[in-house]
């Protein structure tokens, strides 16, 4: 199953995602915070990012799902959880607070790393620590 192609394919997909983040402006926390600042100097650009991304994914997914299985894996592996519970909503609420403080969500934080801003270098390890804490919290 072309196992050796997986890292290369992953890298190319990541590059494409990163280009999208940079070109759209989503990799710039100032732009993200302007989008979230609806009562101030509101910049609605990120609504266009979300629209462009989800409409493309909506159409593309439906083409891909005609296949019996993905190209490099044995089967599709989609999230199976259906319940809207406290963990989902509480987690989303905390995430939104962090997003509103720093202007970074996980993708843009990674794609900002190599530009080396001190704020980014503080944010990314803290994000990894937060993910790690969440793994343990979910087991309790």
């Amino acid at each position, binding site marked *: 199953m072309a196992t050796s192609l*997986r*890292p290369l*394919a*992953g*890298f*190319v*997909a*990541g*590059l494409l995602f990163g280009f999208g983040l940079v070109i*759209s*402006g989503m990799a710039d926390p*100032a732009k993200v*915070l302007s989008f*979230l*600042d609806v009562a101030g100097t509101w*910049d609605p*650009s990120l609504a*266009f990012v979300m629209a*462009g991304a989800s409409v*493309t*994914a*909506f159409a*593309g*997914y439906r*083409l891909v799902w005609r296949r019996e299985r993905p190209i*490099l*894996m044995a*089967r599709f*592996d*989609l999230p199976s959880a259906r319940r809207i519970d406290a*963990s*989902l*909503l509480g987690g*989303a*609420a*905390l*995430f939104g*607070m*962090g*997003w*509103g*403080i720093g*202007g*970074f*969500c*996980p993708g843009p*934080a*990674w794609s900002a790393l*190599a530009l080396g*801003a001190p*704020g980014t270098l503080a944010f990314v*390890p*803290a994000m990894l620590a*937060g*993910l*790690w804490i*969440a*793994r343990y*919290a*979910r087991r309790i």
Partner: protein
Amino acid sequence: MDLPPTDFTPYLSLLGGALIGLSAVLVMALFGRIAGISGITSGAVSGEPAERRWRVAFLLGLVVAPLLVWAMAGDAPSQTVPGSLTAMIAAGLLVGLGTGLGSGCTSGHGVCGLARLSPRSGAAVGTFMATAILTVFVLRHVL
């Protein structure tokens, strides 16, 4: 947090968004998985090696992309990151903890979840958009 106001860029943002969507479709076609960055980040450090490698490579692609844009455009991508390290550490912890507990972020619940018409993702997106807007409102207009 005094960050500069930014220009409205509908066409570039739409184009960039389409590239993000295309990457999500590629991840589905190749790996049969959701292109959620918080999930890919978690999966890059745990799980079996075969599942880890492509995720590490994906994150590497994310890191390298702005450098390639920089090399091609001649200018570093414009970016203003909040300067308070204390605030950025708090923000990072909240983003990691929140996306871990909530099983997804702007990409997993936002782009991919909405594209799958998942009610769970819809609820998550509504919640994190609301608390993000509220947080910015409090930080910029109340405090």
